[in-house]
């Protein structure tokens, strides 16, 4: 760890300190990106009935038990989501949780390895992130999901007067554990092993050649984050889609690879080329990712 990691550490600390603690007095949280079929049974209770917070935490499994706890709502105020229900108001019923989630966002890795220097003037490396997840176990408020990600990004710079580019495709499978203490907020921890396809390009205009290096390596992301519910479409108890904004922080471990460059020659090329070696690169570092997602 060195001083170059300080900004990211400060970011993580600031974010974690600003997250409010979940309160047991809050009404039941709306479902997060994860959902299970078990909870659908609980959701078949009368529309006017809502679950008491304690019941919500124990996640009743049978409609009979859920129906036994009934409260009448006289004047619901959709603007209120307080720690204590207003006098005369009824609690909201937990919506039907969603099983499938998709996301699109931006992932940024802070790569301090010296092998990254030829391709970027700063240490940040941005990638477009596409992800999908399926919740295969739904508890309340904890759920577990499996997912897949594809991240793609290009870093460009000049090295010794030649234009360079570093393209990394990251294909990852993820295992995510979620905790939803309140309706609008879900926190998660994720492990995502990945395969990285790394491609480097060096364009030497005067020599009229573009050098390429292609290689593969492994990666493992360990992250944690939070997702904020922005809104839902459809009924309150059975939204057809929910819209989320998520942020995650963590660290990406990766293997170190050689970067050996030579011109990309086709079958008709009769010239023989040797390799020019640039510094090895290890694309690991602190990462942050934010994304907009839809669950349904």
């Amino acid at each position, binding site marked *: 760890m060195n001083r170059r990691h300080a900004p990211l550490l400060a970011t993580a600390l600031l974010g974690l300190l600003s997250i*409010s603690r979940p309160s047991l007095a809050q009404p039941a949280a709306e479902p997060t990106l994860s959902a299970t079929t078990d909870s659908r049974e609980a959701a078949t209770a009368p529309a006017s009935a809502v679950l008491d917070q304690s019941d919500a935490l124990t996640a009743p499994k049978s409609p009979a038990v859920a129906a036994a706890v009934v409260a009448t709502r006289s004047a619901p105020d959709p603007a209120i989501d307080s720690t204590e229900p207003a006098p005369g108001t009824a609690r909201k019923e937990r919506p039907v949780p969603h099983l499938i989630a998709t996301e699109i966002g931006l992932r940024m890795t802070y790569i301090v390895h010296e092998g990254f220097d030829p391709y970027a003037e*700063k240490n*940040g490396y941005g990638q477009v992130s596409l992800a999908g997840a399926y919740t295969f176990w739904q508890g309340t408020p904890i759920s577990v999901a499996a997912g897949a990600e594809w991240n793609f990004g290009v870093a460009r710079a000049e*090295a010794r007067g030649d234009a*360079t580019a570093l393209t990394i495709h990251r294909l990852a499978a993820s295992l995510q554990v979620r905790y939803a203490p309140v309706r609008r907020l879900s926190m998660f921890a994720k492990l995502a092993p990945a395969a990285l396809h790394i491609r480097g390009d060096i364009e030497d205009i005067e020599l009229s050649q573009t050098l390429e290096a292609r290689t593969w390596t492994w990666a493992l992301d360990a992250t944690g984050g939070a997702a904020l519910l922005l809104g839902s479409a459809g009924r309150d108890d059975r939204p057809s889609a929910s819209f989320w*904004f998520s942020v995650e922080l963590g660290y990406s471990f990766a293997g170190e690879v050689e970067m050996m460059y030579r011109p990309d020659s086709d079958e008709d090329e009769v*010239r023989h080329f*040797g390799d*020019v070696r640039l510094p090895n690169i290890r694309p690991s570092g602190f990462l942050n990712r934010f994304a907009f997602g839809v669950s349904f």
Partner: protein
Amino acid sequence: MSAARTRDAMLATSTRFRALRTALAPSLAVTSLAVTSLATFGCGVREEVWSRPVGASVALMGLRGAAAIVDPEAERALLFPVERDLTLAPVSIPIGRGFAAAKTTRDREQLIVLSRGDVPRRTAGDQGPSMVVIGGGTSPVATARYTLSDPLSGLSIDPASTFAVVYPSASDSSFVQNPNELVLIDLTKPGGPENPLPTSLRSFGGRPKSFTFTEPLSLPGGSRRLLVVETDRDVALLDLSEPAKPEITVKLTGGPQALEPVGVTVSDGEPEVDDDARIAVRLKDDPNVIVLDLLPTPAGEESASPHSFRPTPNIVYVGGTPTDLAFVRTDGGLRLAALVPSRGVLTLVDPATGIGSDVELGAPYERISIVTDVVGGTTNGSDVALLWSGSSANIAFVQLGVTVGKPYKSVEPLELAQPVSAVLDVPAPNSHLKILAAPDGRSFVVLNLLSRTAAPILASEGGTRVTPAPDGARAWMFALSSSSVALLDLESLHPKNIVLSYPIQDVFDVERRDGGRALIAVHPLGALGLTVLDAKSPSLETAIEYIAVLVGEF
């Protein structure tokens, strides 16, 4: 009623406020994470070297086992030894900041790189001036580093690879400078308090401009080597066996007009005699030659002088401004030969008596080279000299024996098509050959000293350069900004032309790691390209090209 309503309203308001706060809290948390994470994206800096383009000050040199590229912007020397399959195995050696000069030793076994360091030095981390010695074999490695006290740019290397001299060149521009301060480095010893050894020449207003390292001379007090320093108005002698001793300065200028030395030649005399060594100094635009006899220190002055010898100057008139000097052996003994093209003669002067005699040449010649070792001496061990000129298309062989009435045996001219601007020596086993280059860069002659034949070799492009291979078997010819290179077999004189992919800046014939030989052609485009060919059987089918080599190999 109104009180209850007010109370309910207040409760509802506070409840809404708490609800709003609760709703905002996670939003703020997530948003702050996103915003601050974005801020860190632009942090960090990379090593400066990547932002520095390949500069025009890249220096190219050939060593015995590798081609060398001094990359000042990256503060390194990049060496390229060659494997059996013609692939390169680059080695990067740091040289320090402020590259000043680089030279190879005559045997190409070492590369010496001089750096000025950081100027000015403000922090403890700033580098000082230094000199790096890099081994030039097939596994290059830095063998020595010497720390210098001052950032100087002048560098002169001993032909015997024993010493190096660092001195202030014209490009050094310190606020205050002593132009006569030299730094002598013994390359056979590691750095220490006495190595490098700074010394300041006593001067009469001049500054050093040329250095000559002599062979071992039989001098009073023992055999030793001398460093002859030519300034713009005097000559200084340093005893290399005891460099800490003060130098001996020979003042050449006595009157208002400064006499500028423009070349020296040295003779050891008879090996078994220790008081007949001499140094001849040619002067600019002057018909006189200063001959320094290195005699014993006069009796009675030994205690006052730190040296066991003393140079005694004699002025020898040669009849015209000489363009070249050499000590030669004739049937009559040692003579100082001075070429005087204005009179078309070679003046032979007895250094002991100062008496001279002229050899009529019939044409103006400007340069002389003793070729006795190649062609063999005359009956009495006299020398044979080769003369050539850059203004007339003639060369001549002069046998310096004595025949009746003449101080020479013969002058054998050889007429060429073009004047000669340079004579290149060919290493053994073809040391009997010389390659003569004409000023136009198109006409070359392979001169056979034994058969006295001159074979013309023509190039289609002006500015063509020729480089004999270190093994003496061939010569390489190429033209700047042309992509063609030719192998000239020096046995058969058959040229083999090869067209490479890019224009060539220089070529180096080096020893491969398996003992074979390779040619490395350097292309001065972009981040530099290299083409590697088999030197004995060059072919594009086996050639390997390397693109943008200076971007990598850190």
